[in-house]
């Protein structure tokens, strides 16, 4: 098969699945619907692998497959083809999306088996995969934007999947609207880039990016990059637009795994990596990206510490991990960010699916205070979850370790980085270790606090197979990007495949000094030690029933409440943005539209009416009055004739 067909199949298979399941939306058979959907995504996965293999066979200089289907929009100089590019970056992305996507589809079959809208669910899921592929494959900003909005739409539909619950529907709406805010900025960023460079094609844009970076804040390029980044904060749940992601946990858990952990939320990172030459030309924008990323990593992690909903903990963890990715992007370590994107996709998808398995076992109970000791009921889930836990901790040897460590190292080492960023990163990692260990301890270890009426049971094979696959990936996934200093001490000196693969696509950081191994070892050691220490503390706190946590929360009541209230950001937005706008709307309607504009209209019409009424008094039907006017006229005319 030639590339065009492969790409077409890759893209259209999920779309076909969407239509098939969409038309059978009334059917309840979860096996049929699931089989169709999973097969379609699996077909895509196969195509992805084929394409990826094709890619590896190509020469490194022009390692890209460009497929153009038709001209989408052409007006004047503006030209956007419906064309797709598969290169080092998107090649990996499609593998992640379709690979993890297939696993999650598989998992969903059992997870959703008692839901009536299962066909609808799978059709949405397939549509999401299609849009996500559109996003990562698009060879220009417009196609990317199509996918960008498309995934947002699917996210909306899937978060609000159980729409009869008002709060779930509201969560979906919140997600879409928050995303829309970012999308609006994205649009403007796209306009600036187009007006600046006359193209929106990635290859052309990256080629035209000025080689000398601009340090002007008001330079169009800086503004464009910042606006695109605002778009990314919406999609990837960064400060200030992260608020939708925790609420998005209202959706079915596999959706959280696919959309809100593995794929969609990483779109912002992907977009910046995709445009890295442009961003490198605007270091000021990257500085903002790094600061926002680091801040998000810390703040989200701190909220995660006190959450009791298993999915909420994972959600804040996701926000925090995305912060790492942006930190990496911000300091110019695009490759590392993408690396973390991939490993995070593995272990976070694993943990979400694991939590799905737990929730399934607990009959929709999500509060970790009511769990504990699930280890013996859910051995496979526990084991795989533990792999994910170790990976996210950054336990040496696990995937998260390599990617996170690299970001931390770069944030310190890169000329665009700063020790403060490193400190923030480590702080985030420490907190991550704490809450993740807490999650593990409260859910799987210690005494069972499971209510009497619930009898947890291990999930069926269809659910644990994806868990196992993802667990394996979480463990070994990092070995393709082993840092140099580690590979030097390993037997055989495995090369950093990842870096090598991405090399042609990534702009070099100007003025990057050679690494000092001693420094690197020290920093790595510090961060790993702190992480282990913090998880140890968490284990002491929560491993066994202990008084310590409650004492702590009493002593730091204010801080504790602030954390539990998630820094009251939602309330702040509600007060500062939503209410004023609703207030404004109501007043505009009632006082401007109805009371002013309409009243002006009525005033005009009443004026005419009044004038008419006045004129009408003359014509009142009184015959003698008419005759009088006639006589009056006669007298006037006569006197005029006589006086002349």
């Amino acid at each position, binding site marked *: 098969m030639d590339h065009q067909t492969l790409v077409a199949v890759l893209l259209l298979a999920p779309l076909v699945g969407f239509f098939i399941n969409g038309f059978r939306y009334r059917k309840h058979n979860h096996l049929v619907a699931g089989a169709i959907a999973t097969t379609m995504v699996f077909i895509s996965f196969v195509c992805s692998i084929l394409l990826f293999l094709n890619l590896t066979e190509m020469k490194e200089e022009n390692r890209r497959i460009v497929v153009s289907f038709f001209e989408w929009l052409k007006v004047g100089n503006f030209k956007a083809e419906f064309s797709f590019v598969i290169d080092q970056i998107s090649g990996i992305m499609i593998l992640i999306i379709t690979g993890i996507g297939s696993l999650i589809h598989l998992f969903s079959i059992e997870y959703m088996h008692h839901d009536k809208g299962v066909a609808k669910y799978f059709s949405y899921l397939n549509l999401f995969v299609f849009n996500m592929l559109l996003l990562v494959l698009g060879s220009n900003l417009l196609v990317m934007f199509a996918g960008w909005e498309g995934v947002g739409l699917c996210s909306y539909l899937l978060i609000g999947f159980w729409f009869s619950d008002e709060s779930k529907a509201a969560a979906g709406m919140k997600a879409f609207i928050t995303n829309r805010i970012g999308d609006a900025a994205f649009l403007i960023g796209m306009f600036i880039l187009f007006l600046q460079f006359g193209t929106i094609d990635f290859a052309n844009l990256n080629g035209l990016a000025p080689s000398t970076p601009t340090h002007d804040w008001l330079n169009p390029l800086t503004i464009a990059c910042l606006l695109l980044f605002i778009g990314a904060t919406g999609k990837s749940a960064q400060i200030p637009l992260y608020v939708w992601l925790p609420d998005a946990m209202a959706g079915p858990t596999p959706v959280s795994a696919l959309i809100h952990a593995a794929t969609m939320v990483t779109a912002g990172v992907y977009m910046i990596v995709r445009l890295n030459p442009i961003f490198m030309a605007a270091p000021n924008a990257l500085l903002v990206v790094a600061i926002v990323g680091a801040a998000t990593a810390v703040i989200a992690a701190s909220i995660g510490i006190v959450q009791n909903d298993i999915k909420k903990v994972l959600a804040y963890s996701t926000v925090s991990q995305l912060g790492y990715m942006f930190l990496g992007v911000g300091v110019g370590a695009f490759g590392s960010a993408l690396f973390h994107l991939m490993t995070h996709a593995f272990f976070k998808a694993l943990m979400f699916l694991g939590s799905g398995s737990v929730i399934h076992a607990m009959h929709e109970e999500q509060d970790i205070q009511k769990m504990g000791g699930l280890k013996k009921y859910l051995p496979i889930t526990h084991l795989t979850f533990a792999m994910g836990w170790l990976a996210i901790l950054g336990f040496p040897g696990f995937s998260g370790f390599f990617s996170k460590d690299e970001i931390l190292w770069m944030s310190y080492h890169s000329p665009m980085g700063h020790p403060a960023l490193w400190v923030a990163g480590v702080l985030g990692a420490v907190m991550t270790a704490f809450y993740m260990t807490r999650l593990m301890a409260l859910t799987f270890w210690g005494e069972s606090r499971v209510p009497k009426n619930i009898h947890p049971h291990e999930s069926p094979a269809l659910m644990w197979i994806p868990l196992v696959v993802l667990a394996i990936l979480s463990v070994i996934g990092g070995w393709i990007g082993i840092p140099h200093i580690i590979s030097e001490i390993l037997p055989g000196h495995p090369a950093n495949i990842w870096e090598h693969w991405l090399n042609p696509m990534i702009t070099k950081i100007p003025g990057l000094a050679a690494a000092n191994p001693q420094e690197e070892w020290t920093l790595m050691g510090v961060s790993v030690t702190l992480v282990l220490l913090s998880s140890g503390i968490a284990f002491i706190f929560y491993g066994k029933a202990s008084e310590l946590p409650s004492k702590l929360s009493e002593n730091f009541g204010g801080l504790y409440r602030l954390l539990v209230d998630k820094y009251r950001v939602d309330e702040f937005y509600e007060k500062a943005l939503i209410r004023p706008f609703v207030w404004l709307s109501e007043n505009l309607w009632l006082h401007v539209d109805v009371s002013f504009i309409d009243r002006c209209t009525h005033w005009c019409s009443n004026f005419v009416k009044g004038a008419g009424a006045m004129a009408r008094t003359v014509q009142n039907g009184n015959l*003698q*009055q008419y005759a*009088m006017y006639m*006589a*009056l006229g*006669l*007298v006037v005319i*006569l*006197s005029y004739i*006589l006086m002349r």
Partner: protein
Amino acid sequence: MTTDAFLFWFLALVTFISALGVVVFANPIFSALSLVMTMVTVAALFATLNAFFLAGVQLIVYAGAVMVLFVMVLMLFDLHKEKKAFTQGAFSGSVKLLLGGLLAGLIVGAVSMSKELYKAISDQAVTNSATGIESTKALGQLLFTQYIFSFEVLGILLLVIAIGVVALARSKGGTHVK
């Protein structure tokens, strides 16, 4: 004072008084009778102007037929003496009076100041004035030659009106059901 002058002044006075009577009598019957009187004096004035045929017609048609019609209708209605003969409204009433006065005043004043008109026309009149019999004959000739079309149209009009009046009078008072 010549006979003509006396006759004119006498008739003018009677005409004026009876015309005033038409307007001011509260009882419509008295008004009607005043009108008859006016008709008669106007007929007499026609006669002083040598329009004997018209004077006759005036007496027969107006004082005879039309007035009888009026009186008949009044009798038919059997109206009580109205308490108020005039419509209400002091302001509009005075305006109306003023207008009537102004109109009369303007015409009278204009006519009295136009000596030339009087002279020019009255000089001609002495030579051209025809006697009574001749004028009737001339009138008849004109009517049946130059004005024959108007005359016939008038006839048709009268016919139409006669039918219309009969139709109106036969109706049970209005088009709506009581």
